[in-house]
């Protein structure tokens, strides 16, 4: 197989994952946090596909389909929650929305 070497694919996936993680950790706006999570999902998906193409197996792509479905469901629920939160608190700042502390 003389395409892109697996190391490159995995490196890109790792970079993307870390970027997404960084976004989740530093962003205060919920929308951006959700977007960062999407990036993390896709990084994981990329890792699956890279692995699948390396070993010539369809499992990687199937797992990617699963991740996509999961992401779609997550967005549906997450955005609905975001709407409700905004209606109630008039803000999307995660540090302000900390009513569930112990």
């Amino acid at each position: 197989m003389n395409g892109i070497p697996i190391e490159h694919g995995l490196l890109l996936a790792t970079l993307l994952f870390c970027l997404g993680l960084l976004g989740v950790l530093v962003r205060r706006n919920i929308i951006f946090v959700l977007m960062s999570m999407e990036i993390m999902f896709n990084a994981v998906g990329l890792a699956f596909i890279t692995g699948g193409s390396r070993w010539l197996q369809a499992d990687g792509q199937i797992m990617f389909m699963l991740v996509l479905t999961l992401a779609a469901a997550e967005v549906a629920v997450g955005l609905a929650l975001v709407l409700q939160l905004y209606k109630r608190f008039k803000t999307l700042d995660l540090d302000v929305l900390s009513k569930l502390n112990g």
Partner: protein
Amino acid sequence: MLKLLWLVPSLPLVGFVLLVFGRLPRKLAACVGVGSIGLAALMTLLIALPFLSLPAEEQVYRQLLWQWFSVAELNVGFTLYLDPLSLVMMGIITGIGFLIHLYSVGYMADDVAFNRFFSYMNLFVAAMLLLVLGDNLVVLYLGWEGVGLCSYLLIGFWYDKPENGYAARKAFIVTRIGDTSMALGLFFIFMHLETLDIQAITQQATALWLPGSWLPVLAAALLLGGALGKSAQLPLQTWLPDAMAGPTPISALIHAATMVTAGVYLIARMHELFLLAPQVMVVIAVIGAATLLISGFTALTQTDIKRILAFSTMSQLGYMFLALGVGAWSAAIFHLMTHAFFKALLFLAAGAVIISVHHEQNIFKMGGLRKRLPLSFWCFMIGGLALVALPLTSGYFSKHEILLATAAFEHSGQWLWLAGVFGALITGIYTFRLIFIVFFGEEKGDAQESFGMVIRLPLLVLCGLSLLGGWIPLPFAQLFPALPASHGSSVMNWVTTLVPVAGIVIAYLCFYKRSAVLERLSQARSGQLLQRFWFHGWGFDWFYELFIVTPFMCLVDINKNDVVDGFYRLLAWFARLLYRLLSFTQTGRVRWYAAVIVLGVVGFVGLGVMR
């Protein structure tokens, strides 16, 4: 017919269940309440007739209902035991109980808690029957505690008044002291004889134990403790006068005629054990004599009509204990029976007086009621004459027998006899003090007698029994060892007979003629002190308050925060500390959670990689 024995305690129990769960209308409740006892009385009669026609040696019947429990070598059957003693007790309980139930229908007619009253009464009769029919001490103890419970419930029947609740608790707790002693006695007997069957105990005790050795003495003393509590004898007598807080029929049934005689029954039932402990017998006799004197003096100064009768009950129970102590078992049971007749009569008549004078109980606020309340007057007169043991009334036969047996007792019998005779004199004085003050003298108030048959009939029947009950022969020839033929001198005989009359004459002089001697005595300072001392029951309540209740309450106060609770409080504190620590991690910040998760994952994955 004997097979029907199980029905006798069951009928009142069924009545109790129906009354508690049935929500019966008032008329039907009265029918069930009285009917169940009436049927039980009828059953008793049906059983008594064939039973008494048996030859004297065969007058024993045992009925095993079911095996109650069986642990290691302890086998307790739910067994009923019928012999002449339990038959007589059964007759008294169902017969007098029926009359008092009938009377209660009239007496309690206006009470809101009519059904509750009859349910308690039925439960009481059931428990009392179990007590006297139990073949082993466990069944007897079940009935014993059952009557204690009913006594508590009925003293506190009008529970909306706090002092009634106080009296009920006092009765319960004081008798509990005796009951604890009795329970210890049961354990002790089982430990040494490995049985709790009454007949087996008496057989084994006579076979194994030496008379006067410490084993039977301790066993008898522990049982005696229970009897003292239940029968209101020194030093556990203080609950009985306060028990008069309940409705008057209760006082008649429980606190005069039946329950308080349970102690007498217990000792008579276990008499062979007590015969092995002559020291305890002497103690019983002395306690009986002391109680009859102390409560007699107290009765002299009381002003509440029911309290006078209560103290006289204690005094008469003292006579029964005196008889038990000197070994005159059948005389004790005989006095128990006649006392049940005339004391029930006196209490029911007192109830009739109390209704007629609009619930006044102070005798000095009554007076001249003889013409206004002829029925109550005659009932009181007959009951009073039987109580003071005027010749040919029922009380005379039994008390005379007791006093003659006492005189023949080898351990200072003369002194005990003297105490008994002096007690009889006092009985005459306080009884006729009551009668002269209430029924003679100037008329006070507008008392009216308007009773239905349900009140008149029991009173009339009890009048008849009080007059003629002394002629009832008791079938105890085989049961109790015969006394040595009494060799009371004819002087003693005459003194015993005439002392009550002297008492009546003294009462006549003091309270009818109002002689000046009494005035002067009660004016003098020492006389007043003595009167206060007697009025408060010789200071027993004060003494117990000072030396038992107060120190106990102090201890309770000190240990209000239970020492043992400290350990559990420490546990709770520790748990709360952990909770505080953990709750710090719950900041409510999602980004913080995410970071912690990442850190954790990195940490664990790192750990896995390192290994």
